[in-house]
């Protein structure tokens, strides 16, 4: 019994210690951001690998999610004779929720895990230590550009996801199921509010981008420098990111749309 309590206590203390380390690490990363802005090339390089190379999965997934929304939305709306509102349903679902959330989940799986594995392997092969001994701060040189690239890329990717999703919904709704073209777009234009819907979605993706990239770079930097350690850190990135995205999504939705 005492042993279990002791284990629980050790686990809890370990968790808090890690949380503290994560925040101190974030502080150092944020302090390194000005040096990234000065060396813009580093940021562009990382935006290519973190953002541009994630485009394929984002575009394809966005298209299919939009197409499924078109199908499901039509089948429900047609019972009420409201199939002309399909454009609104597809667009609101995407810009408010699915765009930021699904794009962030995909980003965590594709780019977040890659960031953790890359940084973790750099640590286990002493590349980060080597930089320190060459008087180069690895947090400024390696971590900060990756953090900033992820933070900037995710909102852009989420926006692309939503835009492609709307096109997917249009293909299915207008192209296949016969919803009126004009009604699809005009109702969407009338009912989707820029600040209420689109900007709130963008704010969500900015928050998710911050949290997911923070988790990814911290897990890589803090991992045990062995193959098993890197593997565990990569798994933790995906799991913690998914939990953080979904829980934060609830909090943000409640604040934005819940009249709380």
């Amino acid at each position, binding site marked *: 019994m005492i042993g279990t309590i002791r284990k629980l206590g050790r686990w809890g203390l370990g968790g808090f210690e890690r949380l503290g380390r994560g925040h101190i690490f974030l502080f150092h990363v944020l302090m390194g951001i000005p040096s990234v802005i000065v060396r813009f090339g580093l940021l562009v390089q990382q935006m290519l690998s973190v953002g541009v190379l994630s485009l394929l999965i984002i575009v394809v997934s966005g298209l299919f999610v939009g197409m499924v929304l078109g199908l499901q939305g039509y089948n429900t709306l047609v019972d009420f004779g409201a199939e002309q509102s399909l454009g609104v349903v597809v667009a609101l679902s995407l810009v408010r929720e699915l765009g930021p959330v699904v794009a962030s989940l995909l980003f965590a799986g594709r780019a977040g895990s890659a960031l953790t594995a890359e940084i973790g392997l*750099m640590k286990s*092969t*002493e*590349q980060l*230590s*080597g930089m*320190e*001994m*060459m*008087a*180069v*701060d690895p947090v400024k*040189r390696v971590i900060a550009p990756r953090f900033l690239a992820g933070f900037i890329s995710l909102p852009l990717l989420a926006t692309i996801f939503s835009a492609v999703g709307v096109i997917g919904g249009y293909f299915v709704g207008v192209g296949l199921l016969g919803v009126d073209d004009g009604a699809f777009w005009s109702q969407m234009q009338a009912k989707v509010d820029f600040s209420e819907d689109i900007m709130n979605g963008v704010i969500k993706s900015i928050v998710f981008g911050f949290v997911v990239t923070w988790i990814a770079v911290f897990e890589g930097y803090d991992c045990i420098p062995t193959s098993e350690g890197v593997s565990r850190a990569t798994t933790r990135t995906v799991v913690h990111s998914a939990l953080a995205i979904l829980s934060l999504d609830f909090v943000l939705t409640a604040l934005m749309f819940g009249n709380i």
Partner: protein
Amino acid sequence: MSSNSDSNDVLVRIRDLHFSRGDRKIFNGVDLDIHRGKVTAIMGPSGTGKTTLLKLIGGQLKPDQGSIQVNGLEVPRLKLSKLYELRKRIGMLFQSGALLTDINVFDNVAFPIREHTNMPPAMVRDMVLMKLESVGLRNARDLMPSELSGGMARRVALARAIALDPMMILYDEPFTGQDPISMGVLVQLIRLLNDALGLTSVVVSHDVQETATIADDIYVLSEGKVVGHGTPQQLAETDSDWVKQFMQGLADGPVPFHYPGTQYADDLLAGSEQGGVA
């Protein structure tokens, strides 16, 4: 040990060094001096904290107690900016080479130059080629680290370590896992670069023969203390059983062949007694 040495001659002065990892004591009152212009070897069996000592000298770890002075500066008390200034004057060769795997040999050697100087590209190119020439790999400049053998990777790392013309180079197990040719090349390079560039070299190794051929001064560490110190010749003629066992690679001695525990006879008798009961 160092009482008669001129203090200006000493680049690294370590006094009463204590360092622990968890409950395990790695150093328990180590004193050592590393002299300018010399190749000093730190030797000892695996797990004695040789690499840890290099990390303490480079300021990557902080001691629990004691003093580590490099070029007159107390390393554990230096602010990060001062520590980085000092590190620009120290090169380190990691056991793995620690080359950046996403850039080629040329860019690896150019890395510290580009990070710390504003030299024009043409000058960086010339400097990198000079460093690569000195380790014999000028024509390998376009290769990626994954295309290099272990020995070549260490030579590239060595070229990178001397890129900023440091005052001292720390070598972490430079000979481990090398074939005889690569080992011979590295042994020669360490001595040659030390003398040609007027460096101070600290070689951490447990390869006794290779290290003894190039070292001016050897410290032997064991169980957190310096157990032997002197020139290779002095250590070869030592009276210490422990140092003798280490330097000659004897299987049994103060470090026993058998893992400590119960006596062999007692173990066998205990087994037969158990058998009888059953």
